[in-house]
């Protein structure tokens, strides 16, 4: 019982620390070099990320399934589900929009 409690607190502490560290670091980065974190999507990189990440959970969906404007909220939804970065999302989005 005691070991479980300590183990749980340990895991949570590690996850929390990493999450906070990432947020703080990201906020600093976005403040100092906003242009780098906000750069436009890259089709080539997006193709790789699309093939590597979508099939982690589900069958690959054809880029032709949706119009350009529909892919935007879909990819944002998948960013949250799959734990992608904003840059990953922009890369995948431009790839899908260029491939339909």
């Amino acid at each position, binding site marked *: 019982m005691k070991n479980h409690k300590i183990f749980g607190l340990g*895991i949570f502490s590690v*996850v*929390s620390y990493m999450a906070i560290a990432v947020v703080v670091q990201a906020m600093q980065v976005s403040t100092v070099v906003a242009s780098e974190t906000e750069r436009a999507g890259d089709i080539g990189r997006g193709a790789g990320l699309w093939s590597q990440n979508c099939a982690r959970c589900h069958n690959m969906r054809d880029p032709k399934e949706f119009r350009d404007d529909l892919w935007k909220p879909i990819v944002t939804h998948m960013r949250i589900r799959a734990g992608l970065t904003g840059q990953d999302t922009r890369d995948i989005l431009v790839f899908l929009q260029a491939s339909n």
Partner: protein
Amino acid sequence: MKAIASRRRIFAVTILTVTALTIPAMVSADDITQLKSELETLKKQVNELKKLLITQQKTVASKAEVDSVKQEVREVAKRSGEWKIADSAVHLAGYGAVGYTDGENSDGAFNLVTFNPIFHYQYKDLFLLEAELELEVGEDGETEVALEYATIDWLINDYAVLVAGKFLSPLGQFRQNLHPTWINKFASAPPGFGHDQAAPLAEVGAQLRGGFPFMKQGRANYAVYVGNGPLIELDGDEIEAVETEGLASNADGELIWGGRFGILPVPMLEFGISAAFGDVGPEGEENLLRSYRTYGVDAAYQIGSEWDFRGEYISQRVGSNTTSAAPESATFRTWYVQGAYKFLPTKWELVARYGDYDSPHASQNQEQWGIGVNYLFASNAIAKIGFESNDGLRGETTDDDRFLLQLTYGF
């Protein structure tokens, strides 16, 4: 001699006169013929030009018409590009399924009809409102409606999203990412991953989640949340169930904290650990607090486009309280492993799964082998046939082997 010379002169003059009068008359006739011919040719050409002019007048647009078309083109071009500058985007997603089950000790029935619309509303790259409804036909024919999740997601920056509302539990992988019927490769959920079993379903609260690069080619993702926590149901002197559908109330006044950390050292290989803890007061005994702990590990690995392997372990434990009507602790734990293979380039897929669910109640325990064959009409339209070999308490439904048929479509 003179007379002869005179006659010769008269003859010569006569010849010259006749010649002078005759030759001009002959040239003039040829010219007229030629001129007539040229005139006819010119008449034909003029008629052809007239016809051509009439045709051109009919087919060639006027300047006003050209200007009008140009204006229309400008308007269409503007409309077609509007989505690029629109602040809001709307999308309807979701999935549906119908299923037939034939159990070892029960009659076959079409026992699954579900429709899960998912709504996405995005404002710039700042907010996403997403919600999923579950509409299901119940055993009595009534339509059951449930709000699976509804959140407002604030995209803080490239590495963090704040999710607030009712969200799918981020503990483990199955509940948050794999349970939709068009994604789940088997026709049923693994044992222990259903309602009131070992895996938490949802939570009402706030969650911070995101991802970031890890080393050279790796990636990591995280989720940390705080929520109202589960409802602990008591039945007599024992804990009956841990309800984790997500409560918009907090009768015991205690919040639950939890999260998951996932890491992909290389693409297509992911390991995750999950944990949640806090105190809970069971229903009717809200002031008699006891501990609540959840631990989980999960892994997934894909090889090429053919192979998919995954597994997950999760455990929920409610601690003891000697002053409670149900003083003993209770642990609900389950795990499963699954492998699937696509016979590319055909549309057939084979899936095998093993799972084992342990509950404090013997009637709920279940060990299960499952094997299934899927036919993918498309990546999101799938027909499944599966067989479950179940081992539970004799006489309970958990012990019944089952055949399952399912048709599912994700959109």
